[in-house]
């Protein structure tokens, strides 16, 4: 039984080490910031989960595995949040991802996302002018098809009221 536990925890620890190593290699070799963050967040979640799982099996039935579970819960809450905050900050400060679609052309120029509201301005929820105009165009395109359908229930209601 002990031997089986040892083997399983050795396998889990080796897998966790491989994830951490892959995260490290990914950070060095990836071309762009966003892909590097994707590789780095692998270390926090996958690597930490497998290593802690491997250590849990070694702990037995004492208080130590409970503490390990608490550490794992804390890590699982905070490290994805940190990765998210980092990538969000990069996106909002204007760092554009290097992307190419299948035909080999790159993304059109221009801001990928609207930048964060400056000091002194409040971010509002009002939609952009051009989005509003595009929405108005779509509504205007669709309404002539709806009008004859809208007249029929009105005619039915008038007939119902008369009778």
């Amino acid at each position, binding site marked *: 039984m002990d031997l089986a536990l040892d083997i399983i925890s050795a396998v889990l620890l080796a897998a966790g080490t491989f994830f951490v190593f892959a995260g490290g290699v990914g950070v060095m070799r990836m071309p762009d910031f966003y892909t590097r963050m994707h590789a780095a967040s692998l270390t926090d979640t996958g690597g930490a989960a497998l290593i802690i799982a491997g250590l849990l099996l070694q702990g037995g039935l004492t208080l130590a595995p409970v503490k390990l579970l608490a550490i794992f819960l804390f890590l699982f*809450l*905070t490290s994805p*949040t940190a990765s*998210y*905050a980092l990538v*969000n900050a990069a996106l909002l400060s204007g760092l554009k991802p290097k992307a190419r679609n299948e035909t080999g052309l790159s993304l059109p120029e221009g801001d990928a996302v609207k930048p*964060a*509201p400056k*000091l*002194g301005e*409040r*971010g509002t929820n009002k939609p952009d002018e051009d989005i509003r105009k595009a929405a108005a165009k779509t509504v205007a395109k669709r309404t002539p098809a709806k009008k004859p359908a809208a007249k029929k229930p009105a005619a039915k209601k008038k007939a119902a009221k008369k009778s």
Partner: protein
Amino acid sequence: MMTIVFSLFLLTMLVLVAVAILRTDNLFTAVMLSGIFSLLMAANFFVLDAADVALTEAVIGAGISTVLFLGALALTAEKDRSPPVGSWVPLISASALGAVIIYGVLQAPRLGDPNAVVHNHVAPWYLEKTPELIDVPNVVTAVLASFRGYDTLGEVFVVFIACMGVMALLGRVRPRRDSIKLTEYEERSRNLRHHLIPRIVGKMLVPFIVLFGLYVQFHGDFGPGGGFQAGGLIAAGVILYSLLEGDWRGRELVPEWFSSLLVALGALLYAGVGVACMLKGGHFLNYSVLFEDPIKGQHVGILLVELGVGMTVTGVMITVFHAFARRGVR
């Protein structure tokens, strides 16, 4: 064997990070690397069997110090630095000093030698007498708070004076009502409220951080812990809340009068315990005379004194952070 390899690896990483701090141009990178330096130092301390010091270095070096550097960086707003001044003289003098130190160090006893001179005089006496005289499991807390209480009193006052200095330099005046309106102040203070995920996760974590700080404070007698670590942790929780919600709401949570009161009361509590011992007939800071049973007197004395230290360190860290944060709201 594996611990030797591990500690060699950690020490080499320390040197590499220090050289990287030296050579980088961007100040933001340098501050982040100094946080990593403190964390590696904390791991090193843990490998060297110093758990209290590792906890303190991790909380204060890697946590609070990085936040203060970033606050100052936001105010000075200079990201890059000019090329170095003619640097032959500093290089030669630093190398000469390093060579002298390495030559002196060659005669030191190797790491972990049980026959080293440093283990012979006072340390065995402390380890032997602590169960008899004080009966507290953590010897470091016993030495810090009771055997060497004067040093810790001086240290509390040094932290207090540093807080006074920062308040005098950066001002503790709240914005005057006639200069800008309060809603403008709230709008202008930077916050992370438009980032939903860090805000929710951060607000969930703040009570647990404060709870852990209180645990570390009161269990300093039985495990690694004590006043300094607890002060840093509770201050870190409050600073996290202020970073997420903005300076104004952070001030609503922990008002200015409260953090200043904490700073003053902590130092007063520490010195007051010493004076109470004198009033009861013993020496200054001799806790054995507080109660009939000297061991109970020691326990209560250590508890009150660590509480004083924790209160002062918490108040100082919160006050210094808010002094930096308020300066940036123009």
